[in-house]
Each structure stands twice: as structure tokens, then as C-alpha cells.
């Protein structure tokens, strides 16, 4: 019990003190995961919509692959990206290993399947009521994709935030690809892992509380936003 009490006290102290390292770590976490989310959205939204609408024979294998990719362990992705980005690897010339760019690359790979799979589901559901009308208008798959993505835009906000939550909470990929370098690739999750391994549990727990609060706040905002915007329309 005293451990929990100590940690709670430590957490509060940290947050109130506005420690600058803590600020740096938090900013980097948000920057890396937010950028990865945006890039993953650019790929995942159209990909998910296409899979939902296409009648090509590729559809079923694609759906299976997408759903399987949801379960890819971050640490495996981290290892694969590490080997890709190593100077001795195929993409070594980019020089992204042990940098935030490499971390963004790895997290993008991690969350694109999430965005694509959720988008696919959302677009498929919205397509049901509109399919016959689209056919009567002679609409191509591409036009349907555009229209449906706009149609489900409020749900897509929630998809984005779910993906962001997943990215900012993972440790396996960013640890291996970033190297947890003090002052340049250290993020909240890798710091928690580090402090725990050093036996500094109160600090680790404090960071954990901060991270969870961040994710909760982001999700609460998403929920409020979605319900408010939808209420205007439905």
C-alpha cells in the first residue's frame, strides 16, 4: 500500500512542478504518435474504404490480412523496422534509425491496419442504405469512396483517436527503433520502462498516470465532439 501512496504523491509532485524533462518527453510522445496517426490516416482511410466497396477478387484475402495485421505485436514491428532502417539494411541510407522519424515510421506501420480495418467497417455499414441509390446514379467505386468517407466523417474522428491512443501507448516498436536515447528519442512509454527497470517505481507510476490521463482526455474530447456534431445532423 505504501508503494501506491508514494507513487501517487510522486505523481502529483511531478505534475505540479512542471518538470522540463517531463515536458520534453510528453511533447515528443505526442508529436511522434500524432504524426504517425496522420500519415496512417492518409493511407488507411482510402484503403479501408476501398476494401469495403470493391467487388474485386482481392477483397477477401485483403480483409483477412487487415484483420491479421491488427494483431501484429508492436515489438515484432519494431524488430522488422529496425532491420529495415539499419545502416546495413535496405533503407539504411535514410538514416532514420534511432531518430524520431524512424519511430514515426514504425508507429505508422503499427496503426495503419487499425485505421483501415475500422474505416472498412464504418464505410461498409454506411454503404448498406446508400448502395442502391449510388447504383441508380451510376457511381464508380472511387466516387462512392469519396462520398462515404465524407458521410462517416464523425466516426472517422473516433477512429483517428483510437489509433492515436494505440500509438502513444505502445512501447515495443519505439523502444527498438528509437533506442530510448535521453534527450532525443525518449518518450513516455520508454521512460516508464526505463524507470521501472531502474527500480524507480514511483516515477514510473507517475508517468503512467500522466499517460493514461492524456489518453482519457483525448478520448473524452473525441466522444463529446462526435456526439455534438452528430446531434446536429441526425
Amino acid at each position, binding site marked *: 500500500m505504501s508503494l501506491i501512496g508514494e507513487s501517487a504523491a510522486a505523481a502529483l509532485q511531478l505534475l505540479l512542478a512542471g518538470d522540463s524533462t517531463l515536458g520534453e518527453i510528453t511533447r515528443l510522445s505526442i508529436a511522434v504518435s500524432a504524426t504517425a496517426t496522420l500519415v496512417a490516416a492518409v493511407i488507411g482511410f482510402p484503403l479501408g474504404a476501398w476494401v469495403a466497396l470493391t467487388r474485386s477478387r482481392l477483397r477477401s484475402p485483403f480483409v483477412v490480412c487487415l484483420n491479421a495485421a491488427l494483431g501484429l505485436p508492436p515489438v515484432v514491428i519494431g524488430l522488422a523496422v529496425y532491420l529495415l532502417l539499419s545502416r546495413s539494411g535496405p533503407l539504411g541510407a535514410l538514416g532514420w534509425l534511432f531518430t524520431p522519424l524512424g519511430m514515426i515510421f514504425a508507429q505508422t506501420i503499427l496503426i495503419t491496419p487499425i485505421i483501415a480495418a475500422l474505416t472498412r467497417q464504418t464505410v461498409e455499414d454506411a454503404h448498406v442504405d446508400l448502395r*442502391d441509390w449510388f447504383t*441508380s446514379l451510376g457511381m464508380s467505386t472511387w466516387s462512392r469512396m469519396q462520398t462515404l468517407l465524407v458521410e462517416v466523417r464523425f466516426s472517422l474522428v473516433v477512429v483517428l483517436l483510437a489509433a492515436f491512443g494505440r500509438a502513444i501507448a505502445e512501447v515495443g516498436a519505439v523502444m527498438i527503433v528509437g533506442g530510448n536515447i535521453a534527450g532525443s528519442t525518449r518518450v513516455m512509454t520508454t521512460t516508464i520502462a526505463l524507470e521501472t527497470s531502474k527500480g524507480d517505481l514511483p516515477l514510473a507510476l507517475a508517468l503512467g498516470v500522466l499517460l493514461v490521463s492524456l489518453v482519457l482526455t483525448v478520448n473524452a474530447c473525441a466522444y463529446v465532439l462526435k456526439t455534438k456534431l452528430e446531434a446536429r445532423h441526425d
Partner: protein
Amino acid sequence: MTELIAPIVSLRRVSFRVSGKTLLEDVSLDVQAGERVVILGANGAGKSTLLKLCAGILEPSAGEISSAPLREQAFIFQRPAILRRSVLDNVRYVLRNRSISEPECSARARLALEVTELTSFAQQPAKTLSGGEQQRLALARAWACQPRLLLADEPTASLSPAAAREVERIIQAVHATGATLIFTTHNLAQAKRLAQRIVFLDGGRIVEDRPASEFFSAPQSGAARHYLEGETL
């Protein structure tokens, strides 16, 4: 001498089967430009299927169909498909889909709203409209496209009598622009008001295909008589 103009919709010995069930069997039908045709029949007789085949939304299992190109058609569903945008934007959507650019796009959209008496709703989210208003929106979209062929599948089935009459008025206005009209309904009074010609379906086959006045006064088939009695009771 009869003018040799091709019919706007032509079905030759068309059948439609799905999952082993035959919904339509050996159907042949010609509709000339400007006609007002109503398809009648009991539930499950195949009315919606026949209508969608006429539109070219469904592919037949057998037989040939020639129909007006999709760009010259408009289809009204029993439950209108509404997008999550304003009423005006819903109309502008179908126009932009036909590559009509501003300012003509907005101008035609506003005109369509005037015709359907939806102008006061222009900026409102379309999903907040009542069922009748949404169906009028669907018709506004149809009107805006200036279709040669208007198809409607039980367009007033879920509407109040007042709303239904509003919808009928707009349908007649579309027809007045020279469009051909094919629709299905359960409402015999409506059929009597609007039809020039009745196509009666029973068990997936066309059993009667006659001018409306003849059909209602002297139905030839037992199925039709049975249907008319049932509906008027």
C-alpha cells in the same frame, strides 16, 4: 403510320433468379417515351424487381433489356437515401456528380427546392427532416437532374395522406416536363389518379398489361380481380 421511335424501356423475355428462387419469369415489356405506367401486384409479385430491371440497376438472369442511360434517369426509393449534409447540398451533390459546375449547380438546386417547396429548409441538415419532407428532397434531386425517365418504388407508402399528395404533385410536375414515369404502388386510388397504363404482376409474370381505365373497370384475369377486391375492401 406509326412513328418508328424506339421505346425508352424495352424488356425481352427477361427472367430474374436469385438464390435458386425465380422472382420474374419470361417478362416482356415496352414503354414509350412520355407514358405513365404503374406496376401493380400483391406483395412478393416482383414489382420492385421489375422496376429495378427497367432502370438497369439489376442485371437479368435471362433475356435482354434496353433502357435509358443512367444519366437520363432518376430513381426514387421507398425510403429515401439522404446524405449527412444540408438539404441544398444533397441536391447539389447529384448535380456535381453529373459534372455540372457552379454557378449553374447551385442555381438548379435552388430551383428544385422551390418546386418541391423545401426552400425554407435549404441550410438545415437533411437528416432532421420528416419522412415526407425527405421524400420531397429525393424528388427535388430527381427534378434537378431533368430526367427523361423517372422510376419510383412505392414512393408514398410510408407517408401521411397530405405528404403523399405533395409527392404526387411533384411527380406529375416531373412528368409534365416530358419525362416517362414508371412506378409501383399499393395505393389503388393513387394508381387510378396517376396511371395511363397498368402492368399487373402475379407470381413473377405479367398477367395484364392494359390501359388503366380498362384495367380498373374490367379486369380480365382472376388474379387481378382478386387483387382489386382485396384492396378495395
